[in-house]
C-alpha cells in the first residue's frame, strides 16, 4: 500500500516492526526481500513517483576540495538514483575485500566468499540475465567475441553485465504496492532519528512533509537506506542524545567518502593494427545469449599487489581511422604522429594480415580511491526547507590515488606494446600532479558509514548494524570499507539482501 505522507494528520504516531528509510536500490530491495516474512514494514520515501524540484532541492549542499555536485549526482523520489543510473554491474574482486598493506584503512570484515551467494541474487534483482564476470568462455562460445591476448600479465579483460537498467521504482512498484505487510509512505522525509538518552536504541523517527506537516513512526528496528551522502547526514543530524550524532562515538560518521575517480573524456587512445581485433563487446555492450555484456580492461591482482596500486577499469570505444587531416594535425601533434604509429606497428611487431585497416580507439577510465578520513561529509550551517542542516562534502584525493591512475595508464601502454598489435597515446599526461579541476567522478557515494569490526575505524559492524546501537542498521554503498574500481550498485544490492536475511533470521 502506498500512502501519501501529506494526508496523514499532524502528530500521528505509527508503530511498525521495521522501518526502512529511503526507497532506492537498497530500500526497495530490502522491502521486497522481507515482504512475505511476517514482518510489518514501513518504507519511508522522501519523494513521490515523479521527480519534483522542491524535493530534489533537499539534496543541495556545499562542496569544498574537488568540486562535486551534491544535487545532480542523485535523485530523490521513489526508486532513488536508479531512476537515472546507467546499469553497469560488476562485483568487487576478492582482493578488494582484503587488507592490503599499501592501502591504509583497507580490509572489510567480510570476504567476497561471504557475498557470493548474494551477488547471484543481486544479479536477478538487477535483471542481468547472466553472471559470468571473469570467464570469457561463455561469451566466446556464444558469439565471435574474443578477449585480446594482451601480454605482460598486468592488464586483463574482465566483464561488466548490464542491467536494462532496472528502474527500481517502476519495475518493483507493483511488488511493493501489493505486499500486504509493506506500507510505503511517500512525500515523507525523516529529519531525525530519535533514540534513548544513551543513543543506543532507536525509539522513533521524526517525519516532515514539505507542506509543513509532521508525524512519527515508532519502529522496533530501523534500516537507514537514504544513499551514500544522506545516510551520514541523517546520523550526524540526529544529535539530540549525543551532539556528535548517532554511531559517531569515534568521529567516523561522514569520513572516508570515496568515489570512482574519472578523468573527463578519454585518458588515452589506442592504435590497433587491425580494426577487426577489438571484438564488438569491447566497443559497446553486446547482447550475447541472455545477457548484455561489455569487456573492459582491468589491472591484474598480481600487478596491483606487486606495484602497490589501486585498481582501474578502462573501457574502449571506436574513435577514428588514422588519416592525416593537416588542419587538425596542426592543432594536435598527436594526430600528426598517428600514421607513424600505425606504420611502426605494422613494420616491426605486428602479425596483422595484409589489408588490415588500422583504427584509433578512445579509452575512458575509472579508478579506485583509497579511503581517507579527510575526505568527508559534514553538516553545513545552512538549513534546507525542512530545517535540516545541509550536507557539506569535502572531497580530496591523495597521492596513492594519483599515483595509481598515472601508473595504470602506463601499464596499459606496456600491455598493448608487448602484445605488438597496438600502441597507446596517453592524453592525460599530468602524471601524479594532476589538478583537482581535472578530476571527474562516477556518481558513486561510498564509505561514509564504513564497515569495520572495530568501532574506532567504522560505523557499522559486519552485519551492517551501527556500532553501539541495538536496532539501527545501514544499507547502501556508504557501508563500503573500500570501493574497488567498479560501479557500486550490484554490491550494495547484494549487501541489502544479506542484511534482509540477517533481519529475517530474527537478529
Amino acid at each position: 500500500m502506498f500512502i501519501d505522507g501529506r494526508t496523514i494528520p499532524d502528530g500521528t504516531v505509527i508503530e511498525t516492526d521495521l522501518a526502512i528509510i529511503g526507497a532506492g536500490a537498497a530500500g526497495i530491495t530490502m522491502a521486497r526481500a522481507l515482504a512475505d516474512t511476517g514482518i510489518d514494514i514501513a518504507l519511508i520515501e522522501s519523494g513521490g513517483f515523479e521527480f519534483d524540484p522542491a524535493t530534489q532541492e533537499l539534496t543541495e549542499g556545499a562542496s569544498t576540495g574537488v568540486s562535486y555536485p551534491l544535487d545532480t549526482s542523485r535523485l530523490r523520489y521513489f526508486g532513488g538514483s536508479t531512476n537515472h543510473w546507467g546499469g553497469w554491474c560488476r562485483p568487487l574482486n576478492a582482493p578488494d575485500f582484503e587488507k592490503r598493506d599499501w592501502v591504509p584503512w583497507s580490509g572489510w570484515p567480510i570476504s567476497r566468499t561471504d557475498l557470493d551467494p548474494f551477488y547471484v541474487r543481486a544479479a536477478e534483482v538487477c535483471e542481468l540475465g547472466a553472471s559470468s564476470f571473469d570467464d570469457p568462455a561463455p561469451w566466446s562460445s556464444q558469439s565471435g567475441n574474443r578477449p585480446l591476448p594482451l601480454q605482460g600479465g598486468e592488464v586483463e579483460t574482465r566483464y561488466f553485465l548490464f542491467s536494462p537498467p532496472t528502474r527500481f521504482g517502476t519495475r518493483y512498484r507493483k511488488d511493493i504496492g501489493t505486499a500486504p505487510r509493506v506500507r510505503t509512505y511517500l512525500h515523507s522525509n525523516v529529519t531525525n532519528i530519535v533514540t534513548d538518552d544513551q543513543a543506543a536504541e532507536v525509539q522513533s523517527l521524526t517525519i516532515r512533509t514539505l507542506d509543513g506537516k509532521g508525524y512519527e513512526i515508532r519502529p522496533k528496528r530501523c534500516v537507514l537506506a537514504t544513499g551514500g551522502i544522506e545516510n551520514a547526514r541523517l546520523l550526524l543530524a540526529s544529535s539530540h542524545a549525543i551532539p556528535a550524532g548517532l554511531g559517531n562515538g569515534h568521529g567516523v560518521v561522514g569520513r572516508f567518502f570515496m568515489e570512482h575517480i574519472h578523468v573527463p573524456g578519454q585518458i588515452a587512445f589506442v592504435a590497433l593494427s587491425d580494426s577487426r581485433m577489438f571484438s564488438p563487446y569491447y566497443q559497446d555492450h553486446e547482447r550475447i545469449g541472455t545477457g548484455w555484456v561489455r569487456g573492459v580492461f582491468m589491472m591484474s591482482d598480481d600487478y596491483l599487489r606487486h606495484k602497490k596500486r589501486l585498481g582501474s577499469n578502462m573501457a574502449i570505444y571506436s574513435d577514428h581511422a588514422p588519416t592525416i587531416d593537416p588542419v587538425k594535425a596542426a592543432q594536435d601533434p598527436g594526430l600528426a604522429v598517428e600514421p607513424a604509429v600505425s606504420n611502426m606497428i605494422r613494420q616491426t611487431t605486428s602479425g596483422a594480415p595484409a589489408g588490415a585497416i588500422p583504427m584509433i580507439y578512445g579509452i575512458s577510465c575509472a579508478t579506485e580511491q583509497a579511503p581517507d578520513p579527510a575526505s568527508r561529509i559534514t553538516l553545513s550551517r545552512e538549513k534546507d526547507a525542512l530545517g535540516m542542516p545541509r550536507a557539506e562534502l569535502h572531497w580530496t584525493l591523495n597521492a596513492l590515488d594519483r599515483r595509481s591512475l598515472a601508473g595504470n595508464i602506463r601499464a596499459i601502454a606496456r600491455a598493448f606494446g608487448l602484445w605488438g598489435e597496438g600502441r597507446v597515446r596517453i592524453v592525460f599526461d599530468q602524471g601524479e600532479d594532476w589538478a583537482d579541476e581535472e578530476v571527474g567522478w562516477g556518481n558513486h557515494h561510498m564509505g561514509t558509514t564504513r564497515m569495520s569490526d572495530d568501532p574506532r575505524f567504522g560505523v557499522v559492524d559486519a552485519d551492517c548494524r551501527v556500532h553501539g546501537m541495538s536496532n539501527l542498521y545501514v544499507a547502501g554503498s556508504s557501508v563500503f570499507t573500500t570501493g574497488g574500481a567498479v560501479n557500486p550498485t550490484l554490491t550494495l544490492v547484494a549487501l541489502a539482501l544479506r542484511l534482509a536475511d540477517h533481519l529475517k533470521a530474527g537478529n
Partner: protein
Amino acid sequence: MELSRRHILLLSGVGLAAFGGGFYAGSIQHHAPDLRDTLLAVLDDPASAAAAGRAWFQSSGVSELDGDALALGLARRLKLQGWNSKGEVTLKEALGKSIRHDFETDDMVSIAGWQFARTSAELCALAASAPAPEA
C-alpha cells in the same frame, strides 16, 4: 669537457652506444651512412617516421640530429637482440625483440603522448636525421 645540447641528448639515451663501442663500433663506424640506410630500409614510409622523430626532438628543444650516432646506437640495441652480419636474426625480428624488451622494462618515450618503445623512437629519430653528405 663542455657538453653541447647534442651531446646532452645523446647521453640521455639516444645513441649512447656511439660512446660505448660494441658490435658496430669497430667494424662499421666508418660506414655509418650505410648503416643508416640499412636500418631505415625496414620502413616503407620513412616520411611518417621522420615526422614522429622530428616531433620528439622538437619537443625536447633539439634541432640538430647526429644520424651517425643514432644509427650506431640503434645498431647496438639490435645486436643485443641477436642481429648480426650472419643474418641469423633479421632486422625486423631484432627490432621486434628490442621493442618488446623496451616495453617489458618500461623504457617508453612519449611523442605527442604516443608511447613509443625507445627503439622505435630512435628509428623515427634516425629517419628524421639528415642523410649523410655524399663522400
